[in-house]
């Protein structure tokens, strides 16, 4: 799977794994530089993903199975 297409959770998991490997000190220098570079790219990708968040539009699934955009009306406050 290409890293760009990985789920956020998988990216975080890979990051944790890589960091643990680096912290174990059992990786040789060349390998650790490679891993470090990859992990840094992952961190940046995750960070970018979080910063450039495009707010997802909520959907509503109607009785007939069709989907529509859905948003809470402010006026709903008065219903309480």
């Amino acid at each position, binding site marked *: 799977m290409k890293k760009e297409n990985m*789920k*956020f*959770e998988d990216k*975080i998991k890979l*990051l*944790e794994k*890589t*960091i643990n490997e*680096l*912290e174990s*000190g059992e*990786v040789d*220098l060349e390998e*650790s*530089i490679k891993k*470090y570079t990859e*992990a*840094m790219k992952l*961190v940046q990708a*995750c*960070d970018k*993903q*979080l*910063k450039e*968040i*495009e*707010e*997802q539009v*909520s*959907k*509503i*699934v*109607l009785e007939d*199975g069709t*989907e529509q955009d*859905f948003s*809470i009306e402010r006026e*709903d*406050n008065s*219903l*309480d």
Partner: protein
Amino acid sequence: MFVFWYNEYGDVMDISKYLTVGALTRYLKMKFDSDTHLRKVYLKGEISNFKAHSTGHFYFSIKDETSKINAIMFASNARKLPFMPKDGMKILVVGRVSVYEATGNYQIYVEDMIEDGVGNLYVAFEQLKEKLSKEGLFDPKFKKPIPKYPERIGIITAPTGAAIRDILSTIKRRYPICETILFPSLVQGDLAKDDLVKKIEMAQNYDLDVLIVGRGGGSLEDMWPFNEECVARAIFASNVPVISAVGHEVDYTISDFVSDLRAPTPTGAAEMAVPNVTDLQEQLLQYQARMKEAMHKIVNYQKIYFESLKTSYVLKNPNAIYEPKKQQLDLTYEKLRTIILNNLEHSKNNFLILKQSSILKNPTRLYEPAIQNLKHVIEKLEMLNPLSVLGRGYTITYQDDHLVKNIEDVKVGNQLQVRMENGIITTNVLDKKGL
């Protein structure tokens, strides 16, 4: 000035007959408390002026069409209530009636309270809970983990009201990258249970990471659909992890027990369903710091290792590599030299010994006996030499190199050679005569 009180008959009043308010109140309280009927009163009515004090005590009134009584429920009992009382709620209470001296009011000290008309529901609730529990539907081993970073969340609740608004606003605030799909459902009334089941089943086809099922607060009857067996079984059968969020913190439903995670409120459910972006960013920073630290350690370690190699004795003193060999070579050479010299000396000595031997000094000793022996042999041969007899006057006669031993061998007139000791005479046979 002295003041006298008179009664309507003009008599001076006897002050000692008058009670203090406290005394009267204590008397009334004693009357209440000694009445066994008032020690355990079963009362039904409707709640009004409900106040939950910060100490945990509930203060309220219970009223019906004609009357009203103050009520207090101490925190120790109030805590155990599975629902939150509110004004207008019809209730059944058990408690004792007594007087509160400070106000002089009599009131009911409520020990237990249930919603009127829902007594049967409680029984049904307990029975279903026990049944499903025995079947293992609440077993922790069936609880699915809630993914940490969901990408798509399903919500089953009413499309209007506080619950959906709280859930959506919480998700948008914490983790706006997450998709939310609402499956609008009835959440109270007779039709709600079937609608909930239908929506839970429907939600299975939407590739959801987690499903929030719930509603806002309400009476036990309002929340009853979440205590229905079919709803519990639909939640149990869900392949998507379910977070239940029904009513308030104090409200427990069968759905809460059977779901993978129970949230105290709809807002709580949203908080449990998604991480917080700012927490995540903080976490990423920590990752970065840890990686740098780890990398720093690795590089440092390599540096130190390299330094230790660089300054190692062998690299600093390269002659140390061959010095011992050289020494060994010297030693071997020395040993070899000694051996050779020793051998030489030995040979020299041997030679000297040989040189000084009597044989070499007097070599004739080696062949003197042979010479003597030879002389002896020669003498012996001399004695056997036929020619030697010639010296004594004997001769040897030859005819043409043949030895003449018989007179028959020669004829008169033949020429013969006569060998003497010191020469040869040639002669002719003049005559012959046998002897």
